[in-house]
């Protein structure tokens, strides 16, 4: 469980006059849940990339529980991300040819941190997300099932933060609702800080804290979030 603070962040891309993202100050308390909305091109993906350290921040600071992620080296940031952030993406990014269980464990195994307890937790999570066949190959699953595997993968290492980028956008409404429910309840159960980027109204309305991005800036902040 980590809190997030953003200070004077500005992300520019070459050839673009206006910054893709520009946030003067933002704070999300530890264990807080936040929904980020906005039209496409409003800077949502950029926000996800810099918050997860996938992209290096050049201007401003982002601290997760006091860690300035821009100060970490590329390899340290990989390790930090693996330990701290559970990521769920629109396109699942599961690896074909591997079973559901192996997919959940793959990042942990590649980081050489998977032990018997991790495997046990992966099996438990599979049950929680409602999948009964751990050895089933992911390519034989429905899209909803795939995203549920992805959710289990995101939280198998007990991340302090869960970030979901359009987790329901490529699912039908029923599967989408299931996945949305899972993400929110699991984040609560694990006590993780949760941030969801979405324009799925059914998902957004579960959140009290919402921000809306317009042209890379926070245009509207609901509830107790400091703008």
């Amino acid at each position, binding site marked *: 469980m980590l809190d997030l603070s953003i200070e004077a962040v500005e992300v520019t891309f070459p050839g673009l006059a206006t910054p893709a993202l520009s946030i003067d100050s933002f704070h999300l308390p530890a264990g807080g849940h936040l929904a980020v909305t906005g039209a496409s091109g409003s800077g949502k993906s950029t926000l996800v*990339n810099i918050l997860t350290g*996938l992209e290096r921040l050049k201007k401003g600071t982002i601290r997760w529980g006091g860690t300035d992620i821009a100060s970490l080296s590329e*390899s340290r940031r990989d390790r930090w991300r693996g*330990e701290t952030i559970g990521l769920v*993406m629109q396109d699942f*990014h599961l690896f074909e040819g591997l079973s559901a269980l192996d997919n959940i464990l793959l990042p942990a195994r590649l*980081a050489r941190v998977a032990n018997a307890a991790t495997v046990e937790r992966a099996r438990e999570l599979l049950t929680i997300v409602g999948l009964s066949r751990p050895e089933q190959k992911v390519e034989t699953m429905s899209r909803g099932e795939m995203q549920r595997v992805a959710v289990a993968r*995101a939280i198998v290492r007990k991340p302090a933060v869960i970030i979901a980028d359009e987790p329901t956008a490529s699912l039908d409404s029923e599967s989408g609702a299931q996945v949305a429910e899972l993400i929110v309840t699991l984040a609560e159960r694990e006590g993780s800080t949760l941030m969801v980027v979405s324009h799925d109204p059914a998902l957004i309305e579960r959140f009290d804290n919402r921000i809306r991005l317009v042209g890379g800036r926070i245009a509207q902040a609901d509830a107790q979030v400091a703008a």
Partner: protein
Amino acid sequence: MIRFILADLNRFRLGAFFIAAIVALAVALGVAVTLQERALRLGSARAAEKFDLIVGAAGSETQLVLSSVFLQPSALPLMTGKVLSDLEADPRVAWAAPIGFGDFFGTSPIVGTTTTLVKNLSAGVSEGAIFAREGEAVIGADVKLPMGSTVKPMHGTLGEGGHTHTELAYTVVGRLKPTGSAWDKAILVPIRAVWDIHGLGHHHDDGDADEHDHDHAAAGADAAKPADAKEPAGHDDHDGHDEHEHHAIDPNQAINEQWQGELPDLPAVVVKPKSIADAYKLRQQYRKDATLAVFPGEVLTTLYATLGDVKQVLSAVAAGAQLLVGAALILVIVMHIGQRRKQIGALRAFGAPREAVFGIVWLELFGLVATGIMAGLVLGYLAARVIAARLAADSGFHMPVGFAPEDMTSISILLIASALLCALPAIIAYRQPPASALRG
């Protein structure tokens, strides 16, 4: 990681198979060239090792060696038979044996020689005995004839329009142990019988020899057809069998290997000198006027030098092919990595360290290439074996195909080079920023 790589390879199994197969073929090409060249070198050196010094008529050194050591059919010039008796009498000579060619039985050359050479050529007989009478023959290990079968010599081969000798048919009385040389395909008979068949006794007409050398590609002894033979066959007085009108030869006549008196002209004499010093002196002495003396080993060394050039050309071709294959593979792989940006980015995004990404890409590629290299080694070895076996079947000349210690060096260099090359796409994957990879 291994499981992920295997799943990945399985997903791209067709491409993976072709990459490994192309690498295997390129490697096999180089391996086959190297192994075959070495086999030829070792095999011929082994075949020549029984022949210390060969004396023949002045002419081509190479042809003398090829015809005597490898029994390659060819019209060797003849030298006077006196050379044989001189050598026999020479105190520096342990033994000297004449060889005479020209006749065939099927594709097996019939070589006239003496029991001395036969005994020194092979480690003895595997069945039967060495010939003791004029009508007896001992066959090389690879000649497929049963004991007791009849061999009717044919002058020249059928394909060359040869004719069958009717004067004498040999009876196979023994089979030699394998020598690994062309002599394994030969049928060895007493040289006296060869002379007798061709109407050569102690008379000889040089002009006649010249005429007929052109008629018979494989003329060894004087190539006189029975109809042309004006001279009655005759022996020197010691064998007590002077009169052979129309070459009527008594197959039960015990062979005589004393070379006194006048002997027919000869294509070659195999000489075993008593010492190395004697060998050099003999070679010097017989390297003038009408005779030629050669160390087959030395002639082969010269041939290998030529062969070495050929091998270098072939190796360069093989290396060029390997280089092209390597370059093409790098191109394909780099493109493939580009297509997998998303997958690689995702691995990073979900917490796989970039070192793991490097490891996956490298291990996956190197696994494929190394498999290809290993398969290529086996394939090249098998190809060399097949080629050697086919050559052995044709010529009886055995070539030992095998890897040598120095091959380990080249294989290691190849593996290290491919390991380094595989690191290139791995580095590309390692350096790919995960965010941009996901965006695409």
